[in-house]
């Protein structure tokens, strides 16, 4: 049923990853991104990769679900591989095979292949780690909330942080309603003989007018009624507003942050002393 759509990839649960303060998770995810880019040697990248593949275990996310989010990356990876293979080799690379015709120079080198593989791994690790730390284990609403609180200092320079966060919240709330409505309006117009699926592009776009206009009218009506209801509940933006959920960092949050920072430090040091293995 269309009602059952879940927004984002949130996977409810009570694991360690679920329990970390969402603000801290955003910071940890940032550290992780830096870490992935600092892992410029084969060993450090391998270590970061192992760490990343441990994350779904810690978050108790089924591995199959996680793999689904990487699958769309296959085309990007393929293109990267081809680009690196054909980009030619640098001087001093161990060339395995090459072919030259006027300006076109194609060369396979040990270093080229290693770079391509490492880059692919890096992309996978990047997507996997951030999605497990953020989207799989944090509800969209908690994320919006965390962003609002992290950006709160910007309020002082008159950036309407609260308003943006409220917009995201309301959008998240109304997306399922509007999807359901679209479905209903399309069925209703189909019952009056509207045909959305045949004809050329112009005809098909025109066929959508009877869907878009009612949908637009309905969105305006929702907005109007919601605004009235919010006014009745004394809403006036962020001024004077308290929050039920006071986010406070716990010892676990600090520990996780410290551990991630330590790992990042270790990766940077290790990459510096990698010697001949620093391909990237």
């Amino acid at each position, binding site marked *: 049923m269309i*009602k*059952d759509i879940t*927004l984002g990839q949130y996977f409810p649960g009570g694991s360690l990853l679920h329990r970390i303060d969402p603000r801290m998770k955003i910071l940890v995810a940032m550290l992780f991104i830096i870490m992935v880019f600092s892992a410029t040697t084969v060993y450090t990248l391998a270590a970061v990769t192992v760490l990343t593949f441990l994350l779904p275990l810690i978050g108790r996310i089924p591995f199959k679900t996680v793999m689904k989010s990487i699958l769309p990356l296959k085309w990007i990876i393929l293109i990267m591989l081809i680009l690196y293979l054909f980009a030619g080799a640098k001087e001093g690379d161990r060339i395995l095979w090459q072919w030259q015709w006027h300006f076109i120079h194609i060369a396979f080198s040990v270093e080229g292949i290693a770079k391509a593989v490492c880059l692919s791994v890096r992309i996978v690790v990047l997507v996997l780690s951030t999605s497990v730390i953020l989207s799989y284990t944090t*509800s*969209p*609403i908690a994320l919006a909330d965390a962003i609002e609180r992290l950006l709160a200092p910007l309020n002082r320079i008159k950036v309407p942080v609260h308003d943006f966060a409220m917009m995201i*919240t*309301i959008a*998240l*709330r109304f997306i*399922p*309603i509007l999807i359901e409505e679209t479905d209903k309006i399309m069925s209703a117009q189909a019952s009056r003989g509207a045909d959305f699926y045949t004809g050329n592009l112009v005809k098909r776009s025109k066929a959508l007018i009877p869907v878009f206009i009612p949908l637009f009218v309905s969105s305006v*009506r*929702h907005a109007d*009624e*919601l605004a*009235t*209801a*919010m*006014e*009745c*509940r*004394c*809403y*006036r933006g962020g001024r*004077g*507003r*308290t*929050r*039920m*959920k*006071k986010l406070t960092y716990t010892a676990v949050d600090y520990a996780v942050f410290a551990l991630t920072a330590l790992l990042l430090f270790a990766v940077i040091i290790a990459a510096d002393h990698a010697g001949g293995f620093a391909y990237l």
Partner: protein
Amino acid sequence: MSFIEIKNLSHAYNEDDHREETIHDLSLSIERGEFVALLGHNGSGKSTLAKLITGILDIQSGQIIADGTDVSKISGEEELFALRRKIGMVFQNPDDQLVATVVEEDIAFGPENLGVEPQEIRRRVRNSLRAVGMLKYARHAPHKLSGGQKQRIAIAGVLAMMPECIIFDEATAMLDPKGRADVMSLISRIHKAGITVVHITHNMNEALAADRVVVINEGRIFLEGTPSYVFSHVDELHSVGLEAPPLTELLHALAAAGYSVPAFSSGVSDTVDVVESLFGK
């Protein structure tokens, strides 16, 4: 002094609003702790009245005094908030009242706006959810609940603001019989807890539960009194496109056929007695 005093209130929408609802020189007072049903056909002006009371619409002429405050003279935000905290509103479409994507966060929305302490908000959220019988849905997403459940969440959201009065603006109109019955029994409980209830509806059976029924037609008070008084005026109700509850309609038809029966039916067994007595002792 009454809790809400409406004096010579008139209101008309501008051309652009495309709404024909108007209010003409309407005066009405609602006592503290009373359960009043505002009855009228679609477009009779009932909802406009509710929006004027809570200061959503500006008063054009006349006066509304709510708990001692002259609504038309309210200028500051603080005063307006004090009024809206005191008089909560529940609307027709349950979807258009819920703001958050988690039930408990939605209920917290009102108290949060009022700047209530987090600890206290938590307590109120729990109490409100318990009051509407939805405690176990605290962590659910509203869009997966039924219409009746969503409406109960909306009511809990208003209760969490500790109102003295709640106006239900056709709050049962979009619900199925089960949801309707749940919300109606909740409204009765809210009334029994001492909160003033104004229930706007065009459903006769729902109006029966009220202390007083006010029939509004073309923006004027057409008929006013206890349910038994109002519903025994069946011809008058028909003249403004309303009907009495079926058993009262039956008694009215019997009376019109020349039988001497009371004008109002208070229930099935009562009416059976009445009709049986027509067959002699």
